[in-house]
Structures are given as C-alpha cells and as structure tokens.
C-alpha cells in the first residue's frame, strides 16, 4: 500500500495586483496593430505596408497641389470618394496584412500558447479585429485628413460644409475599415498556407467586384436600375458606399445604389451582419485551434 502526500516545498504565491482583462485586451491590440505595419519585425516585413501607405498619400498630395496651383476647389478629391477611388491599393493592403494577423499563429500552431494564459477566446479575436480595423482606418483616414488640412490651407470655400463632409468621410472610413477587416481576417484564418491567404483575400475582392460591375452594366443597359443598385451589396466597397450615399448624404463614388433610405438601412444591416458574423466565425476558428 502506497501513501502519497503533497508537500509544501515553499513556492511563493503571487499576491500582487492582477492587471486584468482590459490589460490583456490592450496588450493583444497593440501587438497586433504593430504587426499590421511590420513594426518590431525585420525591415522586409515593413516594406510593403509602408509602401502601400505612401501610395495612398500620393493622390491626396497631388490633389492639394492641383487646388493650390489652379485655384479650382473642384480639384480637391471628395473625402467620401477617397477610399473607393483607391480601393485597389486598400484591397492589396488588406490582402497582404490580414494573413500576418490571422494566419501566422495558425500556421505555426502557437494558438494554444495564448490560451494557456488568462486570455479569453473572444478577447483574442476582438483584439485582432480591432487592430486590423485600426490599421485600415489609419491607412484611409490619414490621407483624408491631409486633404482636409490642405483644403483649409488653400482656402477652399465653405469651411463649415468642408468640416461636415470631412466628418462624414471619417465615419465612412470607420465603416470601410470594419467591413474590410472582418472579411480579410475570416478568409485569412481559413487559408493558413503562406501565399494562399493573400491570394484568397484578393480573389474574393476582385471576383466580387468584377461580377457586380458586369451585372450592373447589363442591368443598366436594360434600364433595371433597382437591380443594379441591389447587386452593389455583394461587393465590399460598393456596400459601404451605399451607406455613405443613402445615410450620410454624400455623392456616389460607386456605380449604382439601391433607392432611398431603405437601401442605406439594408446596407448598414449587411455591414453589421458581416462584422458580427466574422467575430463569431473567428471565435469558433481560434477556439478550435486553441484546443490542439
């Protein structure tokens, strides 16, 4: 008969202050935000995000220069049209950086190490989503802010209207960032192999916009403008532009929008469903990956 006993060999317990959930969230958020721009990693990882951010600034600088030289205030790009105008660059940023956030930990099977600490599954996912959305927001809002400041400096008429349009444009940017981050992270989380995540995200963007534009052209040729508008819900940039046009009252930057406030509300509901759905899917994905 064996007798066993647990001996107290004198390890000290930690009695200090626990930093808590908010601290965990903030740490994960900062870590992921830095990763989105390649900060804290070799120069090779920084080249692309900063190159794309620089490309995003170019049209804003050019537009301000055009206003300053020609004194034509119409040469200033509309704040709400800036993201749709440069959607290809934003899509490439999303495609290259969302696998950095969502695929690497899955590829190297290190997700369980996060969850062996007091990190909640939901916190982990929300931090990733918020970090990518913030990175995208910075990508879009910085040139838009530059445009606004440039407009002030070159004395574009109607400062009150400009401020309102600028604030409306920022709201649009937040919505763009949230919707795009949700789509990008979900796709990247299911294609952990290197290179495939990038291709998959860009494929969804390119194919959805190609199909939507073709259907919209055909529908307009048959003067079926309602169909052309509703089809716009199926591609991210047109989707958010519908909200901008119908609910924020901006000029259209996409081909067609469904009619009236109803169209805007439906588009906003689709955006909300995308973000909520993405959170749920990512939660399930990382929860499963955290078990192995």
């Amino acid at each position, binding site marked *: 008969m064996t007798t066993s006993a647990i001996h107290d060999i004198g390890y000290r317990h930690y009695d200090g202050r626990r930093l808590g959930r908010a601290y965990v969230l903030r740490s994960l958020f900062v870590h992921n935000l830095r990763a989105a721009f390649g900060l804290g*990693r*070799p120069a*090779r*990882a920084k*080249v*692309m995000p900063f190159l794309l951010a620089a*490309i995003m600034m170019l049209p804003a600088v050019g537009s301000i220069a055009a206003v300053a030289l020609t004194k034509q205030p119409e040469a200033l790009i509309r704040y709400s049209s800036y993201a749709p105008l440069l959607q*290809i*660059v934003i*899509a*490439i940023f999303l*495609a*290259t950086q969302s696998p950095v956030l969502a695929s690497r930990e899955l590829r190297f099977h290190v997700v369980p190490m996060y969850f062996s600490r007091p990190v909640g599954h939901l916190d982990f996912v929300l931090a990733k989503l918020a970090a990518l959305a913030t990175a995208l927001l910075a990508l879009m809002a910085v040139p838009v802010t530059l445009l606004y400041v440039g407009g002030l400096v070159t004395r574009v008429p109607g400062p009150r209207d400009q401020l309102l349009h600028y604030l409306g444009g920022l709201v649009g940017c937040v919505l763009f960032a949230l919707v795009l981050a949700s789509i990008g992270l979900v796709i990247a989380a299911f*294609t952990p*192999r*290197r*290179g*495939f995540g*990038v*291709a*998959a995200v*860009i*494929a969804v963007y*390119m*194919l959805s916009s*190609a*199909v939507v*534009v*073709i259907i919209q*052209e*055909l529908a307009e040729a*048959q003067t079926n403008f309602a169909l052309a508008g509703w089809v716009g819900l199926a591609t991210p940039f047109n989707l958010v532009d519908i909200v901008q046009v119908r609910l924020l009252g901006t000029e259209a930057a996409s081909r067609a929008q469904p009619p009236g406030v109803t169209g805007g509300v439906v588009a906003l509901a689709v955006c909300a469903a995308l973000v909520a759905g993405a959170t749920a899917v990512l939660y399930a994905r990382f929860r499963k990956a955290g078990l192995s």
Partner: protein
Amino acid sequence: MNPTIAMITFRAMLGRRRALLLLGLPLLLLALAAGLRMTGTNDLEISTVVLQRFGIATLLPLLALIAGTGVLAPEIDDGQIMYVLTKPIPRQVIVLTKLAVAIVLVTLFAVLPAFLAGLVLTGMTAQVTPAFTVGMLVGGIAYSALFVALAVISRNAVTIGLLYALVWETLLGNFAPGAKSASVQQWALSVADALTDASTVRSTVDLPVALVLLALVTAIGTALAVVRLRSLSVASAE
C-alpha cells in the same frame, strides 16, 4: 522536366482544400455565363465584355499569380527547396518543371473554363471563343513565367505581382494609355483581337509587337528565374 518534382508540386498546389479555392474562381465565371445564357442576354458584345473583363483581366492574372508564385515561393520560404536543390538536378530543369506545372494549372483553371464559358455564351460565333482561348493561353504562359521569376527574386512576390497586375495594369491603365500598352493583358488581348472578326475586341497593341513582347517576357522571366535560383540564399523564414 522532372516527373518527381512535378508530382510533388502538383500535390502541394492541389492537396487538401486548396484545389477547392482554385476551382471556386472559374466556377464563378461559368455560373455567370450560364446566368447570362438563361436570361437571354448573351449577345456578342456582352459575351466579349464578359470574356475580356472576367476572363483576361481578372481570372487570368489571379490564377497565374496563385499558380506562378505558389509552385515555388512556399518551398523557398520554409526552406524545403534545399532538399530539391541539393540533388544533382540542373537548376533549369527545376525552373522549367515548376513553370510547366504553373502553366498546366493556369490552363486547367483559367483557360479551359474560359473556353467553356465562351461556348455557353456564344458558341462559335465570329470565332470569339477560340480567339479568347488562344489569347488567354499565351497570356497565361507569359504571366506564369513572370510570376515564377518574381517568386525566386523576392519574398514579397505575391504583393509585387498584385501591384503589377492591379495597380499597373488596371488602375494606371485607366489613366495612362502608355501603362496600358505595356501590360501582358493587352498583349494577350491583341492575340485574341487578331483571331476574331468581332469588332468589340479591341487592343491598343499591334499583333507583331504583342507576340514579340510576349515571347520576350516569357524568355526573360524563365532565364532570370534560372539565374537567380543558381545563387539562392536561403535565409531563415520570418
């Protein structure tokens, strides 16, 4: 050509769920073609627009990018390429095999579906379908060579390829006609233009120029990939 390398590459590209991703893209084109056929909006103009926008301008560069970089870049990244490079196989055989696999994949997942979509849309009217098939095939070969070379040269091959295919060919092509003419897409379109009577297919490049440039890009891409693979330094993966 080395059958073992070809087999390994095919398995890496098509294994598990990856084939589904590759299959999903052309299925969308076929679904679009079938939808247009069923609603009776498949006249010649619309058919050429669909084949041009969706086939040559979207599906072809996308598939070539996935296949061209996918056959080499992951192996270089995780260092597995060393197991191939340390065997007594000439580097040009490795590059040519990888390139052949990429071309086969592009043909299977982009050119063949475009041919089927063309058949569904127009049948054989005005030789549109065979013209686009040939155009996409030569374009696919040039794109594959370009992207295989990129995969050997840079770790950011996919992003650089995207910047070329999207920003250069599409975004700048809309504003600057010069950038449009200097793109694989227009050269492939030029080949299709020469083979069909349909006046809706228009390219900004003449056929002889396009053919020479396509051959040149393919040859230079392949040669560059061979040269760079000879002196490949395998740093630790990030």
